[in-house]
Every structure is written in structure tokens, then in C-alpha cells.
């Protein structure tokens, strides 16, 4: 599978909700709709309010993957995301209030206004993101190694874009995950672009999954706007990882509708074709699911209306919360960067009052290596 082939496909008509319980389908739908509306609202408010003073990477069109994960991870599982992290933050149970407040740079933000949109990291949620490409993919390896060492049944999931696979450290991570059979699921949202640069300009072959597979990794490639499919594929992968049967790499083909960064459009740069955008808008993950749900009487305009009212209420509350929250104030930078407490050392180590050193020793000449 690759973007070029998908483009020839027209409207995707493989999406099926058979075998998925209505409850789950409704949850998936609701998550996507909520994420979409929340992004749209932020976009609308970005410039007029002029209070969201940080770079924001919106994820309109890419709601399916976070939606699927939102139902599959427990609190003790870890989710590590790239810069385009709002969906994943919500998937891990992050509150919309704290998200908005973080973007507004307020003290009540998910990170107290310190991190901004692209670095949201909340220890209590075991959710982490960061702006440096591939960084959190590599860190996820360590989290999974920790779980394995402690023989926990937790799983680490790391979500990232195709851009992350340009970096060498990504391949180090793939290799090590296979070598140690780590409880780690890689979710690659391949939206074809790293900022404006298409995959074909950055990689010698458009076959990320094939390459990952050659490292001995289990891989799956899926149409990333089919949320029901993602749900089942993620579910299997997470289950396998949890059972100690090793890592999995899932490549989800999807598309970013909006600009790479910020609330505007960047299509005027001419880096992507109209046909491509049209294809993907026609295959909106929410609309595709809605069609199936309507067909099976799981959705009608009344239900949808009600959902929208609830969601919009949550969004309005979040804006209000953010705007009314105080800005952070700091006098003491040191403690934010260094922890001065040493509870473990206090408990485990002795304090001694002495130090002897024979100052007349000569340095050693080490051997050849």
C-alpha cells in the first residue's frame, strides 16, 4: 500500500463495522467528532483571539488513529506521541480544559503553560509528546524495556509520522524492539508529508513497512481512515505485546487536511495536488464511519445533534476555562529544572564524614584500548 495507489481508489468502501460492538462504534465516532470539532474551534479562534501563542499542529483528517487507541489503553500503559499530539493526548484521557489552557499558556494548562502544544507531557496520564522528530519513538523503547524488566503487563505505544522514519534513531529503535521482543506498538501515521516534503523526495523507496519488516518486525499496513479496522489491528497488536509476544509496527495511511502548522492553509505553496486533497476529503474518517452507522441504525440526525451539543458545550467550557485561568508566574527557575529532593538516597545511603586520598600516586598509563 502507498499513497499513490490509494489515490486511484476513489471512495474507500471497505469500511465495515461488523464484529464491533455498537458501544465501541459509538465511542469511536464520538471521539473523532469531538476531536474534529475541538480542532476546528481552536483553528477558528486562533487568530481572532490571538492568545494561543505557540505553534500548533492540528490533526484534522487524522482522527481515526487516536480514536482507536482511546479505547485500548489503560492508565498504566504509556502513550508517546510526536508533535501532532492533541488527539493522542485526548486518547490517553487528557482533559480538554487542560489542553486549551496549555495552548493559551495558562497556569492551569496540562503542563502549567511550560510546554505548549507540541510538548504536552503529563506524567499522571503516562502521556508524553515532544517536538523533536523520532525522539519519543526511541524513548518508548526504554519504557517498554522497563515493563519487560519488571515483568509488568503494561504496553508502550508510540505514535508518529512518516517523517520520523527518515531519522536513523528510528531504525535503531526498530532493531532493538525486535531484538528484545519488547511490549511496544509503533503507530506510524503516514500522511505522505514531512512539512511540505513528500516521502518520495526523502526516501529511496516508498515502502516503510516493508523495510521495517525486514528487521524482523511484525508489520501491518492499513487504510488509516478506517477507524474500525484500526481498532481491530491496534487491539491485536496491543494484546500480543501485552502477552509478551513482541512488538508490532502499524502503518496507517492517512492525510492532513490543514496546514502543517498553524490554523491556516499552506496549499498555496503548491506542494500537494488538488486531486489528492479531494480524495482524502472524500474519505473523511468520520464521514466513512457515519455512513456505516447510519446503514445499521446506529446513528441518525437526532443522535448526532445531541452529540454535537454536548461536545460544543465541552469546547465552550474549555475556552472559558483557558481564558479565565491565570498566567503562570515564576521567580525560581532552578527548582523547575532540578529536583532538590533525594528521598531514595536519604533512605538507602549512609552519610559519612571522611575522605582520604593519597596524593602522591602517579596517574596510570592505560593500555592500548
Amino acid at each position: 500500500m502507498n499513497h499513490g495507489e490509494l489515490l486511484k481508489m476513489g471512495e474507500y468502501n471497505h469500511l465495515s463495522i461488523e464484529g464491533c460492538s455498537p458501544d465501541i462504534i459509538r465511542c469511536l465516532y464520538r471521539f473523532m467528532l469531538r476531536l474534529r470539532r475541538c480542532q476546528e474551534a481552536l483553528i477558528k479562534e486562533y487568530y481572532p483571539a490571538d492568545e494561543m501563542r505557540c505553534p500548533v499542529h492540528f490533526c484534522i483528517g487524522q482522527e481515526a488513529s487516536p480514536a482507536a487507541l482511546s479505547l485500548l489503553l489503560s492508565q498504566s500503559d504509556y502513550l508517546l506521541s510526536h508533535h501532532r499530539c492533541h488527539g493522542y493526548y485526548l486518547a490517553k484521557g487528557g482533559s480538554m480544559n487542560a489542553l486549551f489552557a496549555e495552548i493559551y499558556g495558562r497556569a492551569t494548562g496540562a503542563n502549567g503553560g511550560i510546554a505548549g502544544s507540541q510538548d504536552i507531557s503529563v506524567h499522571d496520564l503516562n502521556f508524553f509528546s515532544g517536538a523533536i522528530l523520532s525522539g519519543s519513538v526511541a524513548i518508548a523503547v526504554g519504557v517498554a524495556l522497563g515493563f519487560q524488566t519488571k515483568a509488568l503487563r503494561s504496553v508502550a505505544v508510540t505514535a508518529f509520522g512518516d517523517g520520523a522514519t527518515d531519522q536513523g534513531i528510528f531504525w535503531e529503535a526498530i532493531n532493538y524492539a525486535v531484538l528484545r521482543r519488547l511490549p511496544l506498538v509503533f503507530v506510524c501515521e503516514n500522511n505522505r508529508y514531512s512539512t511540505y516534503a513528500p516521502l518520495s523526495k526523502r526516501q529511496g523507496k516508498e515502502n516503510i513497512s516493508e523495510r521495517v519488516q525486514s528487521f524482523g518486525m511484525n508489520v501491518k499496513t492499513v487504510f488509516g481512515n478506517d477507524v474500525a479496522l484500526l481498532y481491530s489491528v491496534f487491539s491485536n497488536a496491543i494484546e500480543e505485546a501485552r502477552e509478551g509476544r513482541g512488538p508490532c509496527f502499524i502503518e496507517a495511511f492517512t492525510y492532513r487536511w490543514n496546514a502543517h502548522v498553524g490554523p491556516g492553509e499552506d496549499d498555496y505553496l503548491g506542494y500537494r495536488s488538488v486531486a489528492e486533497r479531494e480524495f482524502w476529503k472524500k474519505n473523511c474518517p468520520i464521514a466513512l464511519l457515519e455512513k456505516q452507522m447510519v446503514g445499521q441504525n446506529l446513528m441518525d440526525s437526532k443522535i448526532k445533534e445531541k452529540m454535537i451539543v454536548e461536545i460544543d458545550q465541552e469546547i465552550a467550557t474549555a475556552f472559558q476555562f483557558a481564558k479565565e485561568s491565570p498566567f503562570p508566574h515564576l521567580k525560581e527557575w532552578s527548582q523547575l529544572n532540578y529536583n532538590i529532593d533525594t528521598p531514595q538516597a536519604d533512605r538507602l545511603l549512609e552519610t559519612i564524614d571522611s575522605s582520604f586520598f593519597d596524593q602522591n600516586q602517579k596517574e596510570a598509563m592505560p593500555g592500548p584500548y
Partner: protein
Amino acid sequence: MTQQTYSKAINQALYQAMELSSNVLVLGQLVDYQSGVFGTTTGLVDKFGTQRVCDFPVAESLMTSTGIGLAMSGMRPVLVHQRVDFMMYSLDAIVNWLSLMRFKSNGKLSLPVTIRAIVGKGWGQGPQHSKSMHAWFAHLPGLRVAVPATAYDIKGLLLESIFGENPTIIIEHRSLFSMTSEVPDIPYRVRFGEAVVRRKGKDVTIVAIGFMVPQALRAAEKLALEGIDAEVLDLRTISPLDEEAICNSVAKTGKLVVMDPAWKSIGMAAEVIALVSEKMGSNFKTKPARICYPNSHTPASSALEVEYYPNETSIANVIRSVVYA
């Protein structure tokens, strides 16, 4: 309390840390072979197994990220680099993730990752095996940096780092590995930010770092024969820095020499002099001086190593010039 080498003290600290807590892991290339990174990890795998004593692929970049992830999941990893030079592959992980996780999490998450990095010297280590780079790490917010000079200190600082809550880089100079001092058998701590006066004196303050400490002490002994009474302050850790100890000593002697085993410009030696200047202004009795390496990479030839590294004569000369200026 027994007389022990620096390398054995490291080995003991690791052993005891791993015994004290199952959260402690050691990761590094070849840590599970009998040779054990110059003997510092020898025997650990026999006791603690390969899940906790992990030979790592030659992928230093990933290794540091793995350490970060381990700490995020509650572990206390110790990463080992045979040379600081090899660690350069991992600077992104150090700069963009390790050093700033506590900050960006708004103080909620600290990462107790300990990085042991060894500096080569002698036997033609050359430009790719002898860098120290401790000034870089100390410039960066969010990291603790120790440069222990004695077996006693390395054990205590290593344990303090493993069971402390901050990411820490410990610079271990290979030439110190066979040097001995009294080392208590119990697991004890040496705190960060506490310099120690290794020799009391009144004529000049010699602030020494790491590998320069034994050389400062030998120089002081030698100069004592000429009637120069030097005070030698071993910083032990450079981040945090014991500013008080430095200023107290210079307040007494009025003269300052800083000995730093690193390139001269924009290093710890500059920081120490700047610090004293800011605090004490024109209270220097003479011009302060730095004893460092030239602003040059390290040559391999033993003949050039002799010219590159400060030696007993050149060290004594600089100290004399500051005392008698």
C-alpha cells in the same frame, strides 16, 4: 574501610546499587563481559542477569533514549560509555529530552538517569578517544555533572546519582582508575554541590577538577618546599557548583588558579574565574590564571601528548607566576 582503586569503587557502587534496588539497571556496550569496561562492571551479570546488565548494540543514540524511557517507567538506569567521544551520538537525547523533561513536565517528572562517561588519555588515544566535554554538560540546564577525582568520591557520587532524582553525567578519567583511596564498604553518599578542601593553604587557591586534582596536590607539595602554601579545592561536582567554597578560599588567599582537564576557552575554568570576579570584583591580589589544555584536539603521538597536557613543570610555573605576580 579498605584501600581501593577507583575502578573497583565503581564496581562496588554498581553492585551495591543493584542489590539495594531492583530498579537499577546497567546498560552499555560489553558491560556483561568479564573484562567489564575496565573492570568496572565485571561480575555484575553473574549476579543480576542479562535483563539488568544489558550489553547494548553500537547505537549510543538509542541507548540514551532507552535510559530516558526506563526512568520514565520508574527504573534507575546507569548508562556506560567507554569514551565520552562515543556518547556524542546521543547528544540529541541528552539536550532535547533528558535535560528538559523535568522542566517541561512542570516539575512533575524527574529522570534519575546516570550516565558514566570515560575519558581516555595516553597511549595515543588521539582526537576521537580523549575528549571530556564536561563544560558542555554543565552549561546545559537540568543536568547534574560530577567529575570525581578519588575512589571515595566516585563511589559516593555514583550512588548519590543513582538514588538521586536528577539526570547525571559522571565524567571518569581513565588515568584515575588505578588510583586508590580509603573506601568504606557500606553504600554511602557524597552530595552534589559540596567541594572539598584537599589541602589547606594561605598563599593561593587552586581550584582543581577531576583528573587535575592529584596533579594539583603534587604541585602543591612541591611548591611547599619553596615556601608557597597553596590551598587545593577539589570541586567534585561542577553542576551544581560549590560557589561558596570557591569564594571563601579566594577571599582568604586573594589569588586564584583554576586547573581544568579540558580545553581552555569557554570551559569550567572560565566560569570559576568569572564567578569570583562577579562576587569579589577587584579583590584579586594578582591576576588569576587557568591551567587547561590548549584549544586544540588531542594528538596521538606520545611526544605530542607530552606537550599537550600540562605537566608538573608547567603547572608549577603557572602557580608561581600567580603567587609572585
